[in-house]
Protein backbone atom coordinates (compact mmCIF):
# COMPACT_ATOMS: atom_id res chain seq x y z
CA UNK A 1 0.00 0.00 0.00
CA UNK A 2 2.79 2.40 0.96
CA UNK A 3 4.56 1.71 -2.30
CA UNK A 4 1.43 2.40 -4.27
CA UNK A 5 1.02 5.78 -2.60
CA UNK A 6 4.57 6.77 -3.43
CA UNK A 7 3.89 5.82 -7.02
CA UNK A 8 0.80 7.95 -7.11
CA UNK A 9 2.57 10.91 -5.54
CA UNK A 10 5.40 10.60 -8.01
CA UNK A 11 2.93 10.54 -10.87
CA UNK A 12 1.07 13.59 -9.62
CA UNK A 13 4.27 15.59 -9.23
CA UNK A 14 5.70 14.73 -12.63
CA UNK A 15 2.25 14.98 -14.18
CA UNK A 16 1.95 18.47 -12.74
CA UNK A 17 5.29 19.40 -14.28
CA UNK A 18 4.13 17.97 -17.60
CA UNK A 19 0.88 19.92 -17.54
CA UNK A 20 2.84 23.06 -16.68
CA UNK A 21 5.24 22.43 -19.56
CA UNK A 22 2.33 21.92 -21.94
CA UNK A 23 0.71 25.14 -20.74
CA UNK A 24 3.95 27.02 -21.41
CA UNK A 25 4.19 25.48 -24.87
CA UNK A 26 0.56 26.38 -25.55
CA UNK A 27 0.99 30.00 -24.49
CA UNK A 28 4.18 30.23 -26.50
CA UNK A 29 2.41 28.81 -29.52
CA UNK A 30 -0.37 31.36 -29.14
CA UNK A 31 2.04 34.30 -29.11
CA UNK A 32 4.01 32.90 -32.02
CA UNK A 33 0.74 32.51 -33.89
CA UNK A 34 -0.23 36.12 -33.29
CA UNK A 35 3.21 37.25 -34.40
CA UNK A 36 3.00 35.02 -37.43
CA UNK A 37 -0.36 35.83 -38.93
CA UNK A 38 0.58 39.16 -40.56
CA UNK A 39 4.20 38.41 -41.26
CA UNK A 40 3.32 35.31 -43.19
CA UNK A 41 1.68 37.04 -46.11
CA UNK A 42 4.93 37.89 -47.82
CA UNK A 43 5.99 37.51 -51.39
CA UNK A 44 8.78 35.14 -50.50
CA UNK A 45 6.39 33.00 -48.50
CA UNK A 46 3.75 31.95 -50.98
CA UNK A 47 1.89 28.74 -50.26
CA UNK A 48 1.89 26.14 -53.06
CA UNK A 49 -1.02 26.00 -55.52
CA UNK A 50 -4.39 25.05 -54.13
CA UNK A 51 -3.53 26.02 -50.55
CA UNK A 52 -6.63 26.52 -48.44
CA UNK A 53 -6.85 29.42 -45.98
CA UNK A 54 -3.93 29.84 -43.61
CA UNK A 55 -5.79 28.85 -40.42
CA UNK A 56 -6.85 25.46 -41.75
CA UNK A 57 -3.56 25.07 -43.53
CA UNK A 58 -1.70 25.26 -40.24
CA UNK A 59 -3.48 22.34 -38.61
CA UNK A 60 -4.01 20.34 -41.75
CA UNK A 61 -0.43 20.34 -42.98
CA UNK A 62 1.42 17.40 -41.47
CA UNK A 63 4.78 18.57 -42.79
CA UNK A 64 5.55 15.40 -44.66
CA UNK A 65 7.13 17.20 -47.60
CA UNK A 66 5.52 15.08 -50.31
CA UNK A 67 4.75 18.24 -52.29
CA UNK A 68 8.41 19.19 -52.04
CA UNK A 69 9.47 15.85 -53.43
CA UNK A 70 7.08 15.72 -56.34
CA UNK A 71 7.76 19.20 -57.69
CA UNK A 72 9.86 18.77 -60.87
CA UNK A 73 11.43 22.23 -60.58
CA UNK A 74 11.85 22.04 -56.78
CA UNK A 75 10.02 25.30 -56.27
CA UNK A 76 8.52 24.18 -52.97
CA UNK A 77 10.64 24.32 -49.86
CA UNK A 78 9.96 23.58 -46.20
CA UNK A 79 10.09 26.50 -43.79
CA UNK A 80 12.88 26.57 -41.23
CA UNK A 81 12.79 27.25 -37.50
CA UNK A 82 12.93 31.04 -38.03
CA UNK A 83 9.38 30.86 -39.38
CA UNK A 84 8.19 29.86 -35.91
CA UNK A 85 5.04 27.79 -35.94
CA UNK A 86 5.20 27.53 -39.72
CA UNK A 87 8.25 25.33 -39.31
CA UNK A 88 8.16 22.47 -41.76
CA UNK A 89 5.29 23.81 -43.85
CA UNK A 90 5.76 24.27 -47.60
CA UNK A 91 6.30 27.63 -49.26
CA UNK A 92 7.52 28.97 -52.57
CA UNK A 93 10.14 31.68 -52.84
CA UNK A 94 9.30 32.79 -56.35
CA UNK A 95 12.33 35.00 -56.76
CA UNK A 96 14.61 31.99 -56.34
CA UNK A 97 12.49 29.38 -58.07
CA UNK A 98 9.02 30.04 -59.33
CA UNK A 99 6.27 27.54 -59.94
CA UNK A 100 6.33 27.26 -63.73
CA UNK A 101 3.56 24.66 -64.24
CA UNK A 102 5.93 22.40 -66.14
CA UNK A 103 4.51 19.47 -64.17
CA UNK A 104 1.29 20.12 -66.15
CA UNK A 105 -1.04 18.47 -63.69
CA UNK A 106 -0.88 20.12 -60.27
CA UNK A 107 1.17 17.27 -58.88
CA UNK A 108 1.87 18.90 -55.51
CA UNK A 109 -1.87 19.32 -55.03
CA UNK A 110 -2.66 15.79 -56.06
CA UNK A 111 -0.08 14.28 -53.74
CA UNK A 112 -1.19 16.15 -50.59
CA UNK A 113 -2.76 13.58 -48.24
CA UNK A 114 -4.59 16.03 -45.97
CA UNK A 115 -5.96 18.16 -48.81
CA UNK A 116 -4.60 21.41 -47.44
CA UNK A 117 -3.55 21.70 -51.04
CA UNK A 118 -7.06 21.06 -52.28
CA UNK A 119 -7.40 19.30 -55.60
CA UNK A 120 -11.20 19.49 -55.90
CA UNK A 121 -11.42 22.98 -57.50
CA UNK A 122 -8.83 21.97 -60.08
CA UNK A 123 -10.60 18.76 -60.87
CA UNK A 124 -13.92 20.53 -61.29
CA UNK A 125 -12.42 23.29 -63.41
CA UNK A 126 -10.68 20.74 -65.61
CA UNK A 127 -13.80 18.65 -66.10
CA UNK A 128 -15.95 21.70 -66.78
CA UNK A 129 -13.48 22.94 -69.38
CA UNK A 130 -13.36 19.58 -71.13
CA UNK A 131 -17.14 19.39 -71.14
CA UNK A 132 -17.40 22.86 -72.62
CA UNK A 133 -14.77 22.22 -75.25
CA UNK A 134 -16.24 18.92 -76.37
CA UNK A 135 -19.80 20.18 -76.47
CA UNK A 136 -21.40 19.11 -79.71
CA UNK A 137 -18.38 17.09 -80.76
CA UNK A 138 -19.61 13.70 -81.92
CA UNK A 139 -16.33 11.93 -82.53
CA UNK A 140 -13.38 13.10 -80.44
CA UNK A 141 -10.89 11.12 -82.49
CA UNK A 142 -11.64 13.10 -85.64
CA UNK A 143 -11.64 16.51 -83.97
CA UNK A 144 -8.77 18.87 -83.20
CA UNK A 145 -9.66 18.97 -79.52
CA UNK A 146 -7.23 17.35 -77.16
CA UNK A 147 -9.18 16.99 -73.90
CA UNK A 148 -6.00 16.48 -71.86
CA UNK A 149 -4.58 19.74 -73.11
CA UNK A 150 -7.84 21.53 -72.37
CA UNK A 151 -7.93 20.08 -68.87
CA UNK A 152 -4.30 20.98 -68.17
CA UNK A 153 -4.77 24.59 -69.22
CA UNK A 154 -7.99 24.95 -67.27
CA UNK A 155 -6.36 23.49 -64.18
CA UNK A 156 -3.37 25.79 -64.16
CA UNK A 157 -5.54 28.81 -64.86
CA UNK A 158 -7.55 27.98 -61.73
CA UNK A 159 -4.51 28.46 -59.48
CA UNK A 160 -4.64 31.56 -57.26
CA UNK A 161 -1.55 31.67 -55.11
CA UNK A 162 -1.41 35.41 -55.26
CA UNK A 163 -1.42 38.28 -57.68
CA UNK A 164 1.52 40.02 -59.25
CA UNK A 165 1.86 43.76 -59.36
CA UNK A 166 4.43 45.89 -61.08
CA UNK A 167 6.67 48.24 -59.13
CA UNK A 168 6.76 51.23 -61.45
CA UNK A 169 9.77 52.95 -59.86
CA UNK A 170 12.23 50.29 -60.89
CA UNK A 171 10.53 48.59 -63.85
CA UNK A 172 12.67 48.90 -66.98
CA UNK A 173 9.66 49.14 -69.28
CA UNK A 174 8.18 51.97 -67.24
CA UNK A 175 11.47 53.84 -67.69
CA UNK A 176 11.45 53.06 -71.38
CA UNK A 177 14.56 50.88 -71.09
CA UNK A 178 15.27 47.64 -72.88
CA UNK A 179 17.13 44.56 -71.75
CA UNK A 180 19.89 42.53 -73.35
CA UNK A 181 21.67 39.51 -71.92
CA UNK A 182 21.06 36.88 -69.29
CA UNK A 183 18.40 38.17 -67.00
CA UNK A 184 19.59 36.92 -63.61
CA UNK A 185 23.27 36.33 -64.25
CA UNK A 186 25.29 33.24 -65.03
CA UNK A 187 25.12 31.81 -61.50
CA UNK A 188 21.37 31.83 -61.13
CA UNK A 189 20.05 28.34 -60.48
CA UNK A 190 16.39 28.80 -61.30
CA UNK A 191 14.77 26.74 -64.05
CA UNK A 192 11.50 27.09 -65.94
CA UNK A 193 9.69 26.06 -69.10
CA UNK A 194 9.34 29.11 -71.28
CA UNK A 195 6.21 29.40 -73.45
CA UNK A 196 8.40 29.30 -76.55
CA UNK A 197 10.41 26.35 -75.26
CA UNK A 198 10.89 23.44 -77.63
CA UNK A 199 11.17 20.85 -74.89
CA UNK A 200 8.50 19.66 -72.48
CA UNK A 201 10.60 20.12 -69.37
CA UNK A 202 12.09 23.07 -67.55
CA UNK A 203 15.45 24.47 -68.63
CA UNK A 204 17.83 26.84 -66.76
CA UNK A 205 17.07 30.52 -67.01
CA UNK A 206 20.77 31.27 -67.35
CA UNK A 207 20.87 29.39 -70.68
CA UNK A 208 18.52 31.86 -72.32
CA UNK A 209 19.70 35.17 -73.74
CA UNK A 210 17.23 37.95 -74.21
CA UNK A 211 17.37 40.98 -76.45
CA UNK A 212 14.44 43.34 -76.06
CA UNK A 213 14.10 46.93 -77.16
CA UNK A 214 11.68 47.53 -74.33
CA UNK A 215 12.00 44.98 -71.53
CA UNK A 216 8.96 42.73 -71.50
CA UNK A 217 10.32 39.52 -70.00
CA UNK A 218 7.53 39.24 -67.45
CA UNK A 219 5.00 39.27 -70.26
CA UNK A 220 6.66 36.92 -72.72
CA UNK A 221 7.77 34.36 -70.16
CA UNK A 222 4.43 34.10 -68.34
CA UNK A 223 3.17 30.51 -68.46
CA UNK A 224 -0.46 31.66 -68.45
CA UNK A 225 -0.16 34.21 -71.21
CA UNK A 226 -2.44 37.04 -72.19
CA UNK A 227 -5.09 36.18 -69.63
CA UNK A 228 -2.65 37.04 -66.86
CA UNK A 229 -0.39 39.81 -68.12
CA UNK A 230 -0.30 41.98 -71.24
CA UNK A 231 2.16 44.40 -72.78
CA UNK A 232 0.23 47.40 -73.93
CA UNK A 233 0.63 51.13 -74.46
CA UNK A 234 0.01 53.40 -71.54
CA UNK A 235 -3.02 55.63 -72.04
CA UNK A 236 -1.13 58.73 -70.97
CA UNK A 237 1.82 58.68 -73.37
CA UNK A 238 1.48 55.55 -75.41
CA UNK A 239 4.63 53.93 -73.93
CA UNK A 240 4.59 50.14 -73.67
CA UNK A 241 4.41 48.66 -70.19
CA UNK A 242 3.23 45.41 -68.58
CA UNK A 243 -0.21 45.24 -67.01
CA UNK A 244 -1.34 42.40 -64.74
CA UNK A 245 -4.86 41.12 -65.33
CA UNK A 246 -7.36 39.14 -63.29
CA UNK A 247 -6.12 35.85 -64.70
CA UNK A 248 -2.81 36.07 -62.83
CA UNK A 249 -2.17 32.89 -60.86
CA UNK A 250 0.67 34.21 -58.72
CA UNK A 251 3.05 31.56 -59.99
CA UNK A 252 5.87 34.07 -59.89
CA UNK A 253 7.73 33.26 -63.10
CA UNK A 254 7.66 37.00 -63.85
CA UNK A 255 9.33 37.67 -60.49
CA UNK A 256 11.99 35.08 -61.21
CA UNK A 257 12.87 36.38 -64.67
CA UNK A 258 12.77 40.07 -63.79
CA UNK A 259 16.28 41.39 -64.54
CA UNK A 260 16.37 44.31 -62.11
CA UNK A 261 18.36 43.84 -58.93
CA UNK A 262 15.27 43.93 -56.79
CA UNK A 263 12.33 42.43 -58.63
CA UNK A 264 10.21 45.10 -60.27
CA UNK A 265 7.23 42.82 -60.17
CA UNK A 266 6.19 41.08 -56.98
CA UNK A 267 3.53 38.53 -56.09
CA UNK A 268 1.28 39.35 -53.19
CA UNK A 269 -0.31 36.29 -51.59
CA UNK A 270 -4.08 36.26 -51.70
CA UNK A 271 -5.51 36.78 -48.24
CA UNK A 272 -8.35 34.41 -47.63
Amino acid at each position, binding site marked *: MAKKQIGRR*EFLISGGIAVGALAVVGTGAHYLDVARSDKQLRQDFLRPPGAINEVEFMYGC*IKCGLCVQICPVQAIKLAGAHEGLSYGTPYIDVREQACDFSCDAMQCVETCPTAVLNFIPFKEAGLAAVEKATEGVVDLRNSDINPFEVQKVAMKETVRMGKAHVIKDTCLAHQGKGFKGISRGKDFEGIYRAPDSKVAWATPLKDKEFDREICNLCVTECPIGEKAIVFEPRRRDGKMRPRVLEGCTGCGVCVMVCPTEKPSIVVEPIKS
Partner: protein
Amino acid sequence: MAFDILKSGKNKPPLKPKPVEEMPHTKLGIEYKEWCNSHKTRHKWRNIRWTALIFMNLLFVVSFAFDLSILEGSLSGSRLIGFYLMDPFNALQVLAVSSTTGYIVHLTMNFWIGLFTILLFWFFLGGRTYCSWMCPYHFLAENMEKLHNYFVKKKMIKEHSFHIGLRFVFWIGFLILAVVTQQLVFEDLNVVGITSRAMIYGPGLLLLWVVGVLLFEIVYSKRFWCRYVCPIGTTWSLVGKLSPLTIKFDLDKCGYCRDCQDVCLVPHELWFVQRGKATQKVHYTGSDCTRCGLCIDTCGGNALTYTIKGWGAVL
Protein backbone atom coordinates in the same frame (compact mmCIF):
# COMPACT_ATOMS: atom_id res chain seq x y z
CA MET B 1 -9.71 -19.29 -22.28
CA ALA B 2 -8.93 -17.77 -25.64
CA PHE B 3 -8.08 -14.49 -23.98
CA ASP B 4 -5.45 -16.04 -21.74
CA ILE B 5 -2.72 -14.92 -24.11
CA LEU B 6 -3.76 -11.31 -23.54
CA LYS B 7 -3.30 -11.41 -19.78
CA SER B 8 0.06 -10.47 -18.31
CA GLY B 9 -0.44 -12.59 -15.20
CA LYS B 10 0.84 -9.78 -13.00
CA ASN B 11 -1.98 -10.00 -10.49
CA LYS B 12 -1.51 -13.71 -9.81
CA PRO B 13 0.48 -14.93 -6.80
CA PRO B 14 4.16 -15.29 -7.75
CA LEU B 15 5.84 -18.67 -8.17
CA LYS B 16 8.51 -19.71 -5.70
CA PRO B 17 12.07 -18.71 -6.75
CA LYS B 18 14.04 -21.54 -8.26
CA PRO B 19 16.51 -23.35 -5.96
CA VAL B 20 20.23 -23.38 -6.85
CA GLU B 21 19.98 -26.86 -8.40
CA GLU B 22 17.54 -25.60 -11.00
CA MET B 23 19.55 -22.50 -11.96
CA PRO B 24 20.94 -22.64 -15.51
CA HIS B 25 24.56 -22.15 -14.45
CA THR B 26 24.45 -25.17 -12.11
CA LYS B 27 23.02 -27.25 -14.91
CA LEU B 28 25.93 -26.21 -17.12
CA GLY B 29 28.36 -26.66 -14.25
CA ILE B 30 29.92 -23.17 -14.48
CA GLU B 31 30.30 -20.22 -12.14
CA TYR B 32 27.36 -17.77 -11.93
CA LYS B 33 29.47 -14.79 -13.04
CA GLU B 34 30.83 -16.69 -16.01
CA TRP B 35 27.29 -17.66 -17.00
CA CYS B 36 26.11 -14.06 -16.77
CA ASN B 37 28.92 -12.82 -19.00
CA SER B 38 28.65 -15.62 -21.54
CA HIS B 39 26.80 -13.46 -24.10
CA LYS B 40 28.12 -9.99 -23.31
CA THR B 41 29.59 -9.52 -26.78
CA ARG B 42 26.65 -10.90 -28.72
CA HIS B 43 24.95 -8.19 -30.83
CA LYS B 44 22.99 -10.20 -33.34
CA TRP B 45 19.60 -8.50 -33.08
CA ARG B 46 21.08 -5.08 -32.48
CA ASN B 47 23.04 -5.32 -35.71
CA ILE B 48 20.06 -6.56 -37.68
CA ARG B 49 17.91 -3.80 -36.23
CA TRP B 50 20.41 -1.02 -36.83
CA THR B 51 20.89 -2.18 -40.40
CA ALA B 52 17.14 -2.16 -40.98
CA LEU B 53 16.75 1.25 -39.33
CA ILE B 54 19.58 2.85 -41.27
CA PHE B 55 18.43 1.22 -44.50
CA MET B 56 14.87 2.49 -44.17
CA ASN B 57 15.95 6.01 -43.25
CA LEU B 58 18.50 6.04 -46.04
CA LEU B 59 15.74 4.99 -48.42
CA PHE B 60 13.94 8.23 -47.54
CA VAL B 61 17.09 10.25 -48.14
CA VAL B 62 18.02 8.49 -51.37
CA SER B 63 14.47 8.68 -52.72
CA PHE B 64 14.53 12.45 -52.48
CA ALA B 65 18.16 13.00 -53.42
CA PHE B 66 17.96 10.96 -56.62
CA ASP B 67 14.27 11.46 -57.32
CA LEU B 68 13.35 7.81 -56.98
CA SER B 69 9.75 6.93 -56.25
CA ILE B 70 10.55 4.33 -53.62
CA LEU B 71 9.94 5.90 -50.24
CA GLU B 72 8.96 9.53 -50.64
CA GLY B 73 8.03 12.01 -47.95
CA SER B 74 9.25 11.85 -44.38
CA LEU B 75 8.28 9.97 -41.24
CA SER B 76 5.33 12.34 -40.79
CA GLY B 77 3.75 11.05 -43.95
CA SER B 78 5.17 9.13 -46.85
CA ARG B 79 4.51 7.13 -49.96
CA LEU B 80 5.98 3.68 -50.26
CA ILE B 81 6.04 2.97 -54.01
CA GLY B 82 3.05 5.24 -54.39
CA PHE B 83 1.23 3.78 -51.40
CA TYR B 84 0.48 6.32 -48.67
CA LEU B 85 1.57 5.90 -45.05
CA MET B 86 0.77 8.30 -42.19
CA ASP B 87 2.28 9.05 -38.84
CA PRO B 88 -0.49 8.01 -36.43
CA PHE B 89 -0.12 10.76 -33.83
CA ASN B 90 0.12 13.37 -36.52
CA ALA B 91 -3.01 11.93 -38.06
CA LEU B 92 -4.70 11.88 -34.64
CA GLN B 93 -3.93 15.56 -34.14
CA VAL B 94 -5.28 16.41 -37.58
CA LEU B 95 -8.38 14.35 -36.84
CA ALA B 96 -8.84 15.99 -33.44
CA VAL B 97 -8.67 19.51 -34.85
CA SER B 98 -10.48 18.87 -38.10
CA SER B 99 -13.37 17.10 -36.43
CA THR B 100 -14.00 20.16 -34.26
CA THR B 101 -13.80 22.54 -37.20
CA GLY B 102 -15.58 20.36 -39.75
CA TYR B 103 -12.58 20.10 -42.04
CA ILE B 104 -12.54 16.33 -41.56
CA VAL B 105 -14.73 15.73 -44.64
CA HIS B 106 -12.02 17.16 -46.88
CA LEU B 107 -9.30 14.72 -45.84
CA THR B 108 -8.35 12.59 -48.81
CA MET B 109 -8.89 8.88 -49.20
CA ASN B 110 -5.11 8.56 -49.31
CA PHE B 111 -5.02 9.92 -45.77
CA TRP B 112 -7.38 7.25 -44.48
CA ILE B 113 -5.72 4.47 -46.43
CA GLY B 114 -2.31 5.62 -45.18
CA LEU B 115 -3.45 5.77 -41.59
CA PHE B 116 -5.11 2.35 -41.52
CA THR B 117 -2.31 0.66 -43.44
CA ILE B 118 0.34 1.85 -41.04
CA LEU B 119 -1.75 0.98 -38.00
CA LEU B 120 -2.35 -2.51 -39.33
CA PHE B 121 1.28 -2.99 -40.33
CA TRP B 122 2.77 -2.01 -37.00
CA PHE B 123 0.00 -3.75 -35.11
CA PHE B 124 1.19 -7.08 -36.48
CA LEU B 125 4.81 -6.16 -35.81
CA GLY B 126 4.14 -5.11 -32.23
CA GLY B 127 3.26 -1.42 -32.06
CA ARG B 128 6.29 0.17 -30.48
CA THR B 129 8.46 -1.93 -32.76
CA TYR B 130 8.33 1.27 -34.83
CA CYS B 131 10.45 2.99 -32.17
CA SER B 132 13.45 0.74 -32.21
CA TRP B 133 13.28 -0.43 -35.83
CA MET B 134 12.35 2.79 -37.60
CA CYS B 135 12.72 5.91 -35.50
CA PRO B 136 15.91 7.87 -36.24
CA TYR B 137 15.75 9.64 -32.90
CA HIS B 138 15.72 6.29 -31.12
CA PHE B 139 18.95 5.47 -32.89
CA LEU B 140 20.60 8.68 -31.69
CA ALA B 141 19.26 8.32 -28.16
CA GLU B 142 20.24 4.68 -27.96
CA ASN B 143 23.83 5.56 -28.71
CA MET B 144 23.87 8.61 -26.45
CA GLU B 145 22.52 6.40 -23.67
CA LYS B 146 25.96 4.78 -23.46
CA LEU B 147 27.43 8.17 -22.59
CA HIS B 148 24.79 8.63 -19.93
CA ASN B 149 25.49 5.20 -18.46
CA TYR B 150 29.20 6.02 -18.39
CA PHE B 151 28.60 9.25 -16.48
CA VAL B 152 26.31 7.48 -14.02
CA LYS B 153 28.86 4.74 -13.51
CA LYS B 154 31.58 7.32 -12.83
CA LYS B 155 29.16 8.91 -10.35
CA MET B 156 29.40 12.25 -12.21
CA ILE B 157 25.63 12.53 -12.49
CA LYS B 158 22.60 11.09 -10.75
CA GLU B 159 19.93 9.07 -12.48
CA HIS B 160 16.47 10.66 -12.43
CA SER B 161 13.43 8.64 -13.26
CA PHE B 162 9.78 9.63 -13.56
CA HIS B 163 6.45 7.92 -13.53
CA ILE B 164 5.85 5.90 -16.67
CA GLY B 165 2.27 7.20 -16.88
CA LEU B 166 3.62 10.64 -17.73
CA ARG B 167 3.40 9.75 -21.42
CA PHE B 168 -0.36 9.70 -21.29
CA VAL B 169 -0.43 13.18 -19.75
CA PHE B 170 1.63 14.40 -22.70
CA TRP B 171 -0.40 12.35 -25.17
CA ILE B 172 -3.71 13.86 -24.08
CA GLY B 173 -2.08 17.24 -23.45
CA PHE B 174 -0.73 17.57 -26.98
CA LEU B 175 -4.07 16.54 -28.45
CA ILE B 176 -5.88 19.15 -26.35
CA LEU B 177 -3.21 21.72 -27.28
CA ALA B 178 -3.75 20.97 -30.96
CA VAL B 179 -7.50 21.50 -30.65
CA VAL B 180 -7.15 24.68 -28.56
CA THR B 181 -4.51 26.39 -30.68
CA GLN B 182 -5.63 24.89 -34.01
CA GLN B 183 -1.98 24.23 -34.76
CA LEU B 184 -0.03 20.99 -34.84
CA VAL B 185 2.01 22.25 -31.89
CA PHE B 186 3.62 18.90 -31.27
CA GLU B 187 5.09 18.86 -34.77
CA ASP B 188 7.24 21.88 -33.87
CA LEU B 189 8.70 19.93 -30.93
CA ASN B 190 8.65 16.48 -32.47
CA VAL B 191 12.26 15.36 -32.44
CA VAL B 192 11.39 12.37 -34.61
CA GLY B 193 9.93 14.52 -37.36
CA ILE B 194 12.67 17.11 -37.05
CA THR B 195 15.42 14.51 -37.33
CA SER B 196 13.70 12.81 -40.23
CA ARG B 197 13.14 16.06 -42.12
CA ALA B 198 16.67 17.23 -41.38
CA MET B 199 18.06 14.06 -42.94
CA ILE B 200 15.87 14.27 -46.03
CA TYR B 201 15.48 17.99 -46.74
CA GLY B 202 18.67 19.26 -45.16
CA PRO B 203 19.43 20.39 -41.61
CA GLY B 204 17.81 23.42 -40.04
CA LEU B 205 17.98 25.47 -36.89
CA LEU B 206 15.49 23.24 -35.12
CA LEU B 207 18.12 20.51 -34.92
CA LEU B 208 19.37 22.46 -31.88
CA TRP B 209 16.20 21.37 -30.11
CA VAL B 210 17.03 17.73 -30.89
CA VAL B 211 20.53 18.26 -29.54
CA GLY B 212 19.03 19.92 -26.47
CA VAL B 213 16.75 16.97 -25.75
CA LEU B 214 19.65 14.57 -26.28
CA LEU B 215 21.81 16.55 -23.84
CA PHE B 216 19.00 16.53 -21.29
CA GLU B 217 18.80 12.76 -21.65
CA ILE B 218 22.55 12.41 -21.21
CA VAL B 219 22.97 14.59 -18.14
CA TYR B 220 19.64 14.28 -16.36
CA SER B 221 17.29 11.44 -17.17
CA LYS B 222 17.98 8.36 -19.25
CA ARG B 223 15.91 8.21 -22.47
CA PHE B 224 13.59 10.95 -21.15
CA TRP B 225 11.86 11.62 -24.49
CA CYS B 226 11.24 8.01 -25.45
CA ARG B 227 10.18 6.89 -22.01
CA TYR B 228 8.10 9.76 -20.69
CA VAL B 229 7.15 12.16 -23.47
CA CYS B 230 6.90 10.84 -27.01
CA PRO B 231 3.19 10.69 -27.97
CA ILE B 232 4.07 8.79 -31.13
CA GLY B 233 5.52 5.98 -29.04
CA THR B 234 2.50 6.16 -26.76
CA THR B 235 0.19 5.80 -29.75
CA TRP B 236 2.14 2.77 -30.91
CA SER B 237 1.98 1.42 -27.39
CA LEU B 238 -1.81 1.62 -27.52
CA VAL B 239 -1.84 0.03 -30.97
CA GLY B 240 0.38 -2.78 -29.77
CA LYS B 241 -1.79 -3.81 -26.83
CA LEU B 242 -2.89 -6.97 -28.62
CA SER B 243 0.01 -7.40 -31.00
CA PRO B 244 0.95 -10.96 -31.87
CA LEU B 245 4.69 -10.38 -32.26
CA THR B 246 6.26 -10.11 -28.84
CA ILE B 247 9.07 -11.37 -26.66
CA LYS B 248 8.62 -14.58 -24.73
CA PHE B 249 10.22 -15.23 -21.39
CA ASP B 250 11.00 -18.76 -20.27
CA LEU B 251 11.44 -18.95 -16.50
CA ASP B 252 13.25 -22.30 -16.65
CA LYS B 253 16.19 -20.75 -18.51
CA CYS B 254 16.37 -17.57 -16.43
CA GLY B 255 19.25 -17.01 -14.01
CA TYR B 256 17.78 -13.94 -12.22
CA CYS B 257 20.75 -11.79 -13.28
CA ARG B 258 18.53 -8.90 -14.50
CA ASP B 259 21.01 -7.93 -17.20
CA CYS B 260 18.08 -7.69 -19.59
CA GLN B 261 16.41 -5.05 -17.44
CA ASP B 262 19.60 -3.02 -17.45
CA VAL B 263 19.72 -2.77 -21.23
CA CYS B 264 15.97 -2.36 -21.66
CA LEU B 265 14.41 0.94 -22.69
CA VAL B 266 11.25 0.06 -20.79
CA PRO B 267 12.41 -2.07 -17.83
CA HIS B 268 8.94 -2.21 -16.33
CA GLU B 269 7.93 -4.51 -19.17
CA LEU B 270 10.46 -7.07 -17.91
CA TRP B 271 9.07 -7.07 -14.36
CA PHE B 272 8.93 -10.88 -14.34
CA VAL B 273 12.69 -11.45 -14.65
CA GLN B 274 13.37 -10.52 -11.05
CA ARG B 275 13.80 -13.28 -8.54
CA GLY B 276 10.47 -14.35 -7.14
CA LYS B 277 8.37 -12.06 -9.31
CA ALA B 278 7.29 -14.38 -12.10
CA THR B 279 3.80 -15.81 -11.70
CA GLN B 280 3.92 -18.18 -14.65
CA LYS B 281 6.49 -20.40 -16.27
CA VAL B 282 6.12 -18.37 -19.45
CA HIS B 283 5.60 -14.60 -19.71
CA TYR B 284 5.18 -12.22 -22.64
CA THR B 285 6.30 -8.60 -22.73
CA GLY B 286 3.56 -6.02 -22.97
CA SER B 287 2.77 -3.22 -25.38
CA ASP B 288 5.46 -0.82 -24.15
CA CYS B 289 8.15 -3.23 -25.31
CA THR B 290 9.88 -1.96 -28.45
CA ARG B 291 10.93 -5.46 -29.53
CA CYS B 292 14.47 -4.14 -29.91
CA GLY B 293 16.04 -7.47 -29.02
CA LEU B 294 18.72 -6.08 -26.70
CA CYS B 295 17.48 -8.35 -23.90
CA ILE B 296 17.59 -11.35 -26.24
CA ASP B 297 21.20 -10.62 -27.12
CA THR B 298 22.34 -10.12 -23.55
CA CYS B 299 20.58 -13.07 -21.91
CA GLY B 300 23.04 -15.70 -20.74
CA GLY B 301 20.50 -18.47 -20.76
CA ASN B 302 18.59 -17.55 -23.92
CA ALA B 303 15.48 -17.24 -21.80
CA LEU B 304 14.10 -14.48 -24.00
CA THR B 305 13.07 -15.05 -27.62
CA TYR B 306 10.95 -13.42 -30.29
CA THR B 307 7.63 -15.14 -30.63
CA ILE B 308 4.29 -14.78 -32.32
CA LYS B 309 1.82 -14.98 -29.48
CA GLY B 310 -0.98 -17.47 -29.93
CA TRP B 311 0.67 -19.03 -32.99
CA GLY B 312 3.12 -21.26 -31.15
CA ALA B 313 1.33 -24.45 -32.15
CA VAL B 314 1.04 -23.46 -35.80
CA LEU B 315 4.65 -22.42 -36.28
